[in-house]
């Protein structure tokens, strides 16, 4: 236990941050190697790019143009150094810089992911709190059942149902595209549905534990209002695992939204990845893998920092 001389708030927060950043840098380096290795392990790139009708000559030209004839370490260093400076190479399919392709699509993916996460949190946290406060009652079980159904429902199916009802029958929402903001609602709901069950269960479990704790008994003994007891004192302590998992879920939403982007014809990063994998557009695949990994690392870092803000004990450690 820290005694009288515990480090001041700002100092310990900085050490905490520094440690996390060093760790993140190491993970980045690993990802760089893996992203590179993955594309090289899947066979001779030049051959698959030349296609089934490519001649040996075509393959040789491609190999030369893309620098695939150089030793692997040289290729890696070249790519890594360029990637670090923002140059991710050129897409052979689009014949354009990869960074531009991604920059065009990233906002769509981000909007989609954030919409999904917001809907998920706004649903899961209140339901989890109510469920915990009414633990063991019919209401609690009802909410648990909803979560179970949500988990069992495939997203493409939910997507289609939503499109049919709200898009075609009721015509409340556009069925595709992102010209207006409401184009994000239906895909956002579909994304949220897959995240809600885990977030809800975590909120419920955390709140049940917090509500049974000694410090909540103290808060009640102090005559605090129910709102303060539940939202200020219990939720703050229950929130940490929720924050961590929400960050991971957002990562999933950003990287794994291929199905949803396809169903709703959104041209985001997921769709781009799908396309380039099919067409062997390896500079794009490499770049997308790298980008998603960076986003993951960034999100985990953000979650750790939020948890450090939530729990003073983490700052000291």
């Amino acid at each position, binding site marked *: 236990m820290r005694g*009288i001389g515990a480090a001041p708030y700002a100092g310990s927060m900085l050490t905490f941050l520094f440690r996390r950043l060093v760790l993140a840098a190491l993970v980045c380096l690993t990802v760089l190697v893996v992203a590179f290795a993955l594309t090289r392990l899947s066979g001779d790139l030049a051959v698959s790019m030349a296609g089934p009708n490519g001649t040996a000559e075509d393959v040789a030209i491609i190999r030369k143009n893309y620098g695939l004839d150089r030793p692997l370490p040289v290729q890696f260093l070249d790519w890594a150094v360029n990637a670090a400076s923002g140059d991710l190479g050129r897409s052979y399919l689009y014949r354009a810089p990869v960074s531009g392709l991604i920059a065009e699509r990233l906002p769509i993916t981000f909007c989609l992911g954030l919409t999904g996460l917001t809907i998920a949190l706004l649903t899961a946290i209140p339901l989890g709190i109510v469920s915990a406060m009414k633990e063991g009652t019919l209401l609690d079980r009802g909410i648990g059942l909803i979560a179970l159904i949500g988990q069992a429902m495939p997203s493409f199916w939910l997507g289609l149902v939503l499109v049919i009802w709200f898009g075609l029958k009721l015509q409340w929402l556009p069925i595709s595209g992102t010209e207006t903001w409401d184009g994000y609602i239906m895909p956002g709901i579909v994304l949220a549905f897959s995240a809600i069950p885990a977030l809800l269960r975590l909120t419920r479990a955390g709140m049940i534990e917090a509500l049974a704790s*000694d*410090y909540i008994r103290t808060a009640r*003994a*102090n005559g*605090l209002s129910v709102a303060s007891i539940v939202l200020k004192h219990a939720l703050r*302590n229950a929130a940490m695992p929720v924050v961590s998992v929400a960050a991971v879920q957002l990562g999933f939403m950003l990287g794994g939204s291929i199905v949803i982007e396809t169903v709703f014809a959104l041209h985001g990063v997921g769709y781009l990845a799908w396309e380039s994998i099919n067409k062997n557009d390896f500079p794009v695949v490499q770049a997308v893998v790298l980008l998603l990994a960076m986003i993951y690392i960034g999100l985990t870092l953000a979650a750790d920092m939020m948890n450090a803000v939530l729990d*003073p004990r983490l700052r000291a450690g």
Partner: protein
Amino acid sequence: MKPVLEIENLRVGFPDGTAAVRGVSLRVGRGETHCLVGESGCGKSVTALAAMNLLPRGATRSADVMRFHDEDLTRLSERQTSRLRGARMAMIFQEPMTSLNPAYTIGSQMTEVFQRHRHATRAQGMDRAAELLERVGITAPGMRLAQYPHQLSGGLRQRTMIAMALMCDPELLIADEPTTALDVTVQAQILRLLQTLQRELGLAVLLITHDLGIVARMAQRVSVMYAGQVVESGSAADLFGAPTHPYTRGLLACIPIPGKTPRDQPLGSIPGSVPKTGAEFAGCAFRDRCTYATADCAGTIPHRTVATDHRTLCTMVPA
């Protein structure tokens, strides 16, 4: 004079079938200290929590009378009870390590009570908190207010809990082993503080303790609990001078002698252990450990009056 806290025939049961409190009656008057003693697991904390309506979920509570001044505690809603708690009746818990919220500074937690009941500003709350930290013997209160519970030792946390309970000048203080983590000097300071508040503000104290030295020093009245019942109660003078129940006598026989018995030796070093009591348990729960036990002890035993305000639950005392 009307008591501040009056409890008659309190019963508390847990879902697992334990009858933790079986018909406890006690009263605490204005400016008075009522000590609740008895060995571990006899239901002291559960009695205190029942009075504050802070029992864990699933516990059942019933009482013929449970009154705080003119408020019928058995009828108040949770909302109405919360207006009393922290403001007019306060409690210090037995678990100082876990009873403060790890996520907030102690200043923030102490201030919140004051703001809630006194409609004061945050600055006024901080001033009040600093004043009380000082009164429980914490130096540099300004620095402490900005610290989190994990930065405080057990003793400091316990003193913080005491200070927090006193924020709104309560009329009743229920203190469950409030000085276990403190050294003798600090303990003496806390006890003096309580006595001052009793004299100046008429604070009524229900004090739960294992330490018969504290009982001798603080108590006007004493209730001895055993297996969920008060087996003997009376003025401190009666209980120390003329104990009637074999369990009380056993406890007194284990009074620590300064310099001879180690401090913190558990009270009730009587051979045997407390039986688990369910709802259907009948007779004297102490009979298996009692050298005077007879066949009568298995039957129902009504309370006997030894003298005015001195009652016992033993067949040896003529009815």
